[in-house]
Every structure is written in structure tokens, then in C-alpha cells.
């Protein structure tokens, strides 16, 4: 379990806090979505939940982060890496820059953890299979398209098999097929007990994937609840978040007194 309690965070060298009094709890096997307008603090929250803020980038944290019962404050960054990984949306920065092939790139994480060779290879193969990267394993990581590089970046994190995975806009560069692929991979990952926090604009993706959604605005959690409840909340528009197509249409039908029950079955069928 990953838990943030009463967390406020200020970046090093800045006078104002950008996160205020955040409470967040991720249980094993849970997939939680994080939504909010840009510059509301989604990325900062991802950094803080991974422990890298402040362990790596400094700054000051009030409140606490606990990982599986262990407070994060005492942990070195490589110890954090054994428990929780965080991925960002820019595939260029997620790449190590030293791997000659995609297979090596994905293998670097487990290798760095000091695992024996068989274990490293096993984990790499599993990550490659999860994200269907089989055809790319011999390619040069520098020569991939943005979408391919993003998938490799995610695989590189999954290969480390951490208990907690935090992803900041993991499908930004992906086409609809890639987005669906990532959704399936993450669902199966949660099925084996990994907890996931995913920050995304694509609410349709989150709709099918998450059990719970958190909405953040100006550094505060303003909504926290089951997916359907949050996505039906009329405050989303004011927050600058586009609800998923399903929720949007249901609300439009209700507003215009169109019989929702007539279309509900169509919705259920069409949205699958």
C-alpha cells in the first residue's frame, strides 16, 4: 500500500507550496486515476508519491509518504526504486541513452537492481510481451517513433516489477491502438497485485480502467471517489476536465429530456 498523509510540498528555491494537504491511498491491485487541468499539480503529485520529491530533487515536504508500512523519508533513491517507479510523458527523457537495443533498454532496470542474469532476462521478456514489443527488441532505442519510444519507456519501468507504478500521461504520444494496449497491460498488472496511479487527460481510458478517480486543482484534491461518481460530477467542466464520452452523452440526454433508458442499453453495448 502507498499512502500520502497530509502532504504539502514546496520545490527547492520556491517560496510557495504547490501541493496542499494531500491525502492519497493506493491499495494493492488498485488503479486510481488522477485528473485535473494542466499546471494543477498532477506531475508534482506523481513525483511526491514516488518519493523522488524530496529524496532526489530536494524541496520540502510536510506530512508523510509511507510505502508498504515503511516511511519513505529514510529511503535512498535506489531503495525507493525497488518499491515504486514513476514514468513521465516525454519519451526522450525516459530513455537511458546507453542501450544499443530495445531489449537492453528494458533490461537495464532489473539489471541495475542487481538481479541474476536469468531473472533479468525473464522480467524483460515479460515486459516485452505485455506491451507487444516483440518486433522492436533489436531496434536502436534512439531511432523509434514517439509512440514506440513511449511504449518502450513504460516497459522499462514494468520490467522492474515494483509494487507501485505511477504514470504521468503514459499515452500522450500513442495512437488509439497503443492507448488500448497500455490500458490492457495496466489492467493485467493490477490483476497481479501492483497498485497504479495514472495521471491522464484521456478520461475515456480512465473510465474503463480505474476504480477510483482523484481530481486535483491548484494543488488540492477536490474530488475523490469511485469512477462513475466523479465522472458524473457537474463540477468537472469548471475544472477544465472533459468527462468521458459516456458520461457526457448521458448528461446531455438528461438535459434535453431524451429518454436515457432507451439509449442506456445502446450505451452499454456501444461503449464495450
Amino acid at each position: 500500500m502507498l499512502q500520502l498523509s497530509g502532504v504539502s510540498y514546496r520545490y527547492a528555491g520556491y517560496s510557495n507550496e504547490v501541493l496542499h494537504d494531500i491525502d492519497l491511498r493506493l491499495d494493492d491491485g488498485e488503479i486510481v486515476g488522477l485528473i485535473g487541468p494542466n499546471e494543477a499539480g498532477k506531475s508534482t503529485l506523481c513525483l511526491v508519491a514516488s518519493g523522488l520529491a524530496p529524496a532526489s530533487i530536494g524541496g520540502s515536504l510536510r506530512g508523510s509518504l509511507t510505502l508498504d508500512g515503511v516511511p519513505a523519508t529514510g529511503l535512498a533513491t535506489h531503495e525507493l526504486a525497488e518499491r515504486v517507479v514513476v514514468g513521465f510523458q516525454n519519451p526522450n527523457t525516459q530513455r537511458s541513452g546507453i542501450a544499443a537495443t530495445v531489449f537492453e533498454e528494458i533490461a537495464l532496470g532489473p539489471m541495475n537492481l542487481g538481479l541474476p542474469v536469468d531473472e533479468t532476462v525473464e522480467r524483460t521478456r515479460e515486459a516485452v510481451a505485455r506491451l507487444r514489443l516483440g518486433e522492436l527488441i533489436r531496434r536502436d532505442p534512439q531511432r523509434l517513433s514517439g509512440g514506440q519510444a513511449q511504449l518502450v519507456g513504460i516497459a522499462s519501468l514494468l520490467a522492474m516489477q515494483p509494487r507501485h507504478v505511477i504514470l504521468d500521461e503514459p499515452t500522450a504520444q500513442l495512437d488509439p491502438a497503443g492507448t488500448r494496449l497500455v490500458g490492457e497491460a495496466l489492467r493485467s498488472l493490477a490483476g497481479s497485485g501492483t497498485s497504479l496511479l495514472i495521471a491522464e487527460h484521456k478520461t475515456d481510458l480512465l473510465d474503463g480502467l480505474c476504480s477510483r478517480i482523484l481530481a486535483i486543482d491548484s494543488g488540492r484534491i477536490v474530488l475523490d471517489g469511485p469512477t462513475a461518481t466523479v465522472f458524473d460530477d457537474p463540477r468537472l467542466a469548471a475544472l477544465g476536465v472533459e468527462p468521458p464520452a459516456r458520461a457526457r452523452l448521458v448528461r446531455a440526454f438528461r438535459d434535453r429530456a431524451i429518454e436515457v433508458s432507451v439509449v442506456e442499453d445502446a450505451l452499454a453495448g456501444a461503449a464495450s
Partner: protein
Amino acid sequence: MILVSVFTRAGTHVLFTIGPFDATTEGVDFAGQTLVRLFAISTSIGLFGLTTEPRSFVLDLERRGLSPRFAFVALATLEAVPAMVERASIIGSAQRARGLDTEGSLRARLRGVLPLVGPVILSSLTEVEERSLALEVRAFGRPGHRHLLWRLPDSTAQLIVRTGLFLALIAAIAGRITGTFPRLP
């Protein structure tokens, strides 16, 4: 420079004279020795560069005990230039799409330096923090050695040649020290 030493070494056996300068056998001897030494050094460096795959070299060093962090720095340095070239090419396209003239007068092309070089440097610098975070996430900072996936192929023949060369080196040094190294007449 080496030729000059033919004339400038103090010596007694004069071979020929050009103006005020005497070419001596001692000078020729010295010049010859310097040439041979320079040749030996530059050839060995060249041979090393031509026969050694840089990545394999770094990884083998790590296998023999070099810290993974040093290995990372070495490998990243090797990859830095191709990565930057790739980046520069995309930047070039984007700026040309904004009307930057890369084929016109020299003045026009000079004005293009900042829009072409600026983003390379700026984007590299701004990416540094996120890059290093991503590295930490993947445990690059973990102390202790790791079990490398790579194995450098090493045959018995190579081992024999290496041992032979090493013994020859010992013999050469010993010969030089004890003065029993064969000399030219």
C-alpha cells in the same frame, strides 16, 4: 622537428654539413629512436581504436570491477553525439518550416546559427533534470555491482596471444633494465 634534432644533438661524428649546421651520427641515432618511439605509441593507440568496440570495452571494464556509474558515464558520452545529431536534424526541419533560410547568403546562414543551435542546447539542458530522475527511478544509483547481460566472447587463441604478448612485454622491460636488450650495430 625530428629532422632538426639531426643537426642539434651534440656529437662528434659529422656526416655532412649544411651551412653552420653539422649533421652527426648521434643526431641521426636520436632522431631515429624518437621516430620509432612515436611510431610505436601512435600505432598502438590506432590499433586499439580500430580493433576495440567501445561499448564492449566499457562493459568488460565493468565486469572486471569498474563502478557501474563510471561505465554509465562512459557509455552515455559515446552515445551523446549521435543523439545530438538526431535532435539537431529535427530542429533544423522545424526552423526551416518557419522560413529559416539555410541555403541563402552567408549572412542569412549566420543568422540561422542561434535558431539552430539554441534549441539543441536549451532542450538538452531543460531535459537534464527529468533525465536524471528517470535514471534514478531505474536504480542507476544503486551501489554494488550488477550481473551484466553481456558476455565478451574470448577464445583460447586470444588468451594465448594475450599471454604471449604480456610475457614479451615483461621480457622487453627486463632486457632494457639489465642492458641485455639487443642493439643495432
